[in-house]
């Protein structure tokens, strides 16, 4: 029976929940997050992430590429910290190949990964600020991220999509000037972090907006698969750099900051503290970095430098083979994970002994973190959803793959 408008007369007034389509075109959607939020008044009943707007089939693409050709695609996963993605992938392939990169390359890789952690966390905190109304915070964070990007530019010429790490080493050596600039950054950035803390940490409004919002206990966080700073904010001491050390992290001296309440404010404080620890790591790496080669001496995996190709027959052949045929990787499967800025970033590769991966699977931290959206935001206010999204810090290149 069709109801006409007039039939509504005399019916009791009822309230009904509202389904709000939050994103994908929304200032706080962090890219293309689409949240379906059911609200009653301003209270959130359910929040369901609807992902896939940035799906590019990265995993499938990998099956059709040589191992070394896939590195640029990893840049575009978490585009805020391309170096970490490079690292996770090349480590996985190197594990399959069973090779160890030279010490110098390992130190350079750690510096690159920690710099990208800095840039990732800076963007996270800046975007968080602007989502909650502190607009200047974004500009300050972006300004200071610029110094990190300058360092990357010095290292490899690119500012966003680096493809700097290669299987078997790194693409270019870290110069003395780069080291000097790194130390300069380590000197300047702590002051800037102090500045952010002055703006936000002690700010009554910031505390009110984040304290107790989206709290999750350690057990629940493990159960739901949270990772990285979000997990550590709940007091779970799990950091791949400490617990399953890779590269030279076991030789470095740094702390893993932990939160207690698992609310947005703890997630913020963990990130701030992690930036300080990253600076410590970079300082130590620059100090301890040994001289030596920055690539493995295996011409079929790392082709000789360009200028040799024009003069040396052998070099030309290696280069030609590398570009046209790639290199074979022994049969087997491997899972290799690193502590990316957003959490555990893992690459699972199954190799059938050819030049291309048979199957590649990415364990993207943003994807796993976003699962917690519903649990965290139930019963909170609509405005808190924004704070929670910012605190989970999803990047959709990575989440949608």
């Amino acid at each position, binding site marked *: 029976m069709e109801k006409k408008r007039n039939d509504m007369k005399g019916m009791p007034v009822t309230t009904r929940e509202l389904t709000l389509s939050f994103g994908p075109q929304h200032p706080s959607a962090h890219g293309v997050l689409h949240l379906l939020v059911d609200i009653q008044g301003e209270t959130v009943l359910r929040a369901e992430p609807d992902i896939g707007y940035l799906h590019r089939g990265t995993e499938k693409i990998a099956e059709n590429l040589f191992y070394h050709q896939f590195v640029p695609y990893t840049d575009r996963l978490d585009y805020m910290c391309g170096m970490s993605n490079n690292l996770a992938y090349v480590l996985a392939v190197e594990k399959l190949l069973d090779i160890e990169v030279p010490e110098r390359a390992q130190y350079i890789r750690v510096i690159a990964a920690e710099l990208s952690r800095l840039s990732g966390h800076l963007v996270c905190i800046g975007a968080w600020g602007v989502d909650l*109304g502190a607009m*200047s915070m974004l500009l300050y964070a972006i300004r200071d991220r610029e110094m990190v990007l300058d360092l990357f530019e010095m290292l490899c010429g690119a500012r966003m999509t680096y493809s700097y790490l290669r299987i078997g080493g790194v693409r270019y050596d870290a110069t003395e000037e780069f080291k000097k600039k790194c130390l300069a950054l380590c000197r300047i950035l702590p002051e800037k972090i102090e500045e952010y803390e002055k703006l936000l940490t002690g700010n009554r409004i910031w505390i009110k907006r984040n304290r107790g919002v989206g709290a999750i206990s350690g057990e629940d966080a493990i159960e739901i698969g949270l990772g990285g700073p979000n997990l550590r904010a709940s007091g779970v001491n799990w950091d791949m750099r400490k617990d399953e050390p890779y590269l030279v992290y076991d030789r470095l001296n740094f702390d893993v900051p932990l939160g207690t309440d698992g609310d947005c404010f703890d997630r913020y404080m963990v990130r701030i503290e992690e930036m300080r620890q990253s600076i410590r790591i970079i300082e130590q790496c620059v100090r301890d970095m040994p001289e030596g080669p920055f690539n493995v001496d295996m011409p079929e995996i790392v082709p000789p430098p360009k200028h040799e190709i024009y003069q040396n027959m052998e070099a030309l052949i290696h280069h030609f083979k590398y570009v046209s045929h790639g290199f074979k990787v022994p049969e087997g499967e491997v899972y290799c994970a690193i502590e990316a800025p957003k959490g555990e970033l893992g690459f699972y590769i199954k190799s059938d002994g050819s030049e291309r991966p048979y199957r590649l699977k990415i364990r993207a931290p943003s994807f796993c973190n976003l699962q917690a959206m519903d649990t965290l935001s139930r019963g909170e206010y609509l405005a808190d959803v924004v704070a929670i999204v910012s605190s989970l810090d999803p990047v959709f290149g990575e989440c949608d793959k």
Partner: protein
Amino acid sequence: MTEAFIEVAIIFVKVVVLGFILFSLPLPLTWLERKIAGHIQVRLGPFRVGPHGVLQPFADMVKMLFKEDVIPEQADRLLFRFAPIVSMVPIFMVFVAIPFGESWTIPYINKEVTLYVADMNVGLLYILAISGVAVYGIILGGWASNSKYALLGGLRSSAQMISYEVALTFACIGVVMLASSLNLIDIVRAQTGGVTNWNVFYLPVGPVWFVIFFIAGLAEINRIPFDLPEDEGTLAAGFHVEYSGIRFAYFMLAEYIAMVSMSVLAVILFFGGWDDPTGLGWLPPIVWFLLKVGFFVYLFMWIRFTLPRYRYDQLMTIGWKILIPLSLLNILVTGWMII
């Protein structure tokens, strides 16, 4: 007969001049706000159009005028058109009762002109009442857009305005008690004769009055940290999310003029209006007045680019649990002090 005619003519001229100034005020203000934002955020702000971007507001105005005026299909077309006007007109009407100074003698014809349009004996009451009407524009705009975000913005603004209007009015009561008049000119006269006579320095209650007034005023004009109706982090743009072109400009205009009117009120009620703090008289009173107003306008902008915003329920808590009880207590103390 001629006397009356001249009086009417003078009022007419004053209204036209005031209207013109108010309409053109957002032009420098938007430029100023963007410049201040730029410098706070270590960037330049507008720089392309004209020297230091001074012509940027004109470019923006041209853009606004030529933008397509979109009315959503599901919108209530009449109310949708009506809402920007409702939010703008009352803000302009506020200025009828606002005095900018005592009087000014026009040179050559030696005619003394008062620097206000109307000398109302209930000026303050009129201003509070009229500026309360402006909230209807926001509510109607939010409702008529027929968009969920706009609706939420409208709902928030109605709750916010109602709670903060109470605190704002209570904050003004103290001033009225001191001056024993609702007339703004009398209120300023009561404060003349040096800084210590300003209401804000009427210890110990004066500063409390001013703080309550200032916080409630921030909420009243929708500025950060209380800009919840347009909370771009959550509601995209809140009540005016569906508006474009010149209708959106009306809302903007209203917001800027509201900011000026709140600054003007703060100066008149608490900072001695056009009273010269130095007592030397080396600047005409109107300049002092404008300087003080400018300071408050700057303060509003400064706050906007420094603080995050409150959440809806926290805003309500501040209004009902802190500001209103505090202002009631303050009324008691003021009454006791006067007796």
